[in-house]
């Protein structure tokens, strides 16, 4: 039996992979890889770390899917120590022409998904009197760039959710924190051409994009015993943009 059980949502994406790998570097940790439609990268991780992680089919937008996922985790591990709400999705449009579906889908995945996740794991964490919740917000929550009204609103909502929930459960030994990555070199930036990448990097004081491992390190830190007095914090990981 592992000493610690972690659930990472959006575990098939670049950031989710890096976060899962960071936790798998701890010998005594079992990582549940929350995946939805695509599972190829998560399956590769299971091959790399046999017996240390497992896929969990999870539609973060559905409360019933969360209930099933938590039941599956508890059936095997009888505990859940860390939830990383990483599943995210963006669909950029100017607000004047944004389809309602783009607004609703982005809010559903980025904000409602984290809400359902927190509700699903809290009874277990309250019962354990121990737990860590780490929400992947975004620098967009703080900068609100044009073309991202939906994504920025969802991530700003996630920041507020983090701070409010942190106060609610602080005395139960449950911490709730968020990280706000800026430009991170994952598949999400793949649509940029060389010129756009160069222009974006010029805006960053460090003059480079972040690496997924650099975000993962902050997430892992927030889940470690040394971070036990940090709650309601919003940590930006942006190379100095803000």
């Amino acid at each position, binding site marked *: 039996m592992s000493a610690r059980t972690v659930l990472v949502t959006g575990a098939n994406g670049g950031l989710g992979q890096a976060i899962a790998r960071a936790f798998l570097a701890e010998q005594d940790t079992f990582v549940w890889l929350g995946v939805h439609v695509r599972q190829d990268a998560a399956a590769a991780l299971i091959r790399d770390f046999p017996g240390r992680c497992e896929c969990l089919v999870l539609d973060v937008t559905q409360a019933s899917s969360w209930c099933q996922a938590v039941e599956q985790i508890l059936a095997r591990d009888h505990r859940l120590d860390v939830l990383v709400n990483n599943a995210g999705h963006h669909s950029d449009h100017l607000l004047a022409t944004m389809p309602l579906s783009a607004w609703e889908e982005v809010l559903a995945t980025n904000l409602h998904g984290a809400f359902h996740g927190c509700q699903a794991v*809290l*009874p277990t964490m*309250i*019962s354990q009197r121990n737990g860590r919740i780490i929400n992947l917000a975004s620098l967009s929550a703080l900068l609100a760039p044009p073309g991202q009204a939906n994504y920025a609103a969802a991530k700003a909502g996630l920041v507020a959710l983090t701070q409010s929930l942190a106060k*609610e*459960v602080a*005395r*139960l030994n449950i911490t709730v924190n968020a990280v706000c990555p800026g430009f991170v070199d994952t598949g999400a930036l793949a649509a940029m051409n060389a010129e756009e990448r160069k222009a974006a990097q010029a805006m960053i004081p460090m003059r480079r994009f972040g690496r997924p491992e650099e975000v993962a390190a902050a997430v892992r830190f927030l889940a470690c015993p040394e971070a036990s007095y940090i709650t309601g914090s919003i940590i930006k990981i942006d190379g100095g943009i803000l």
Partner: protein
Amino acid sequence: MDDPTSLKERIKNLMVENLMLQVTAAEIADDQPLFGPGSLGLDSVDALQLVVALDKHFGLKIRDPEAAREILKNVNAMAVAVQQKLAA
């Protein structure tokens, strides 16, 4: 099944332990209100913990806020709800 008196004792001990109350189980009256004036002084986070504890220890699931208000009124009300659940 517990008799009503020992069930109430279990509930009181569970409250003292889970909510880290600064009173002993013996000091909690069966009909003492849990919330509001003249009560034990519990708040909404205590209520959340009680809901989780009643589910964990007795399998009593309280999903409706209205039902929670009734059941978490005092130890008597919690004991009745638990007995009904155990008898079902």
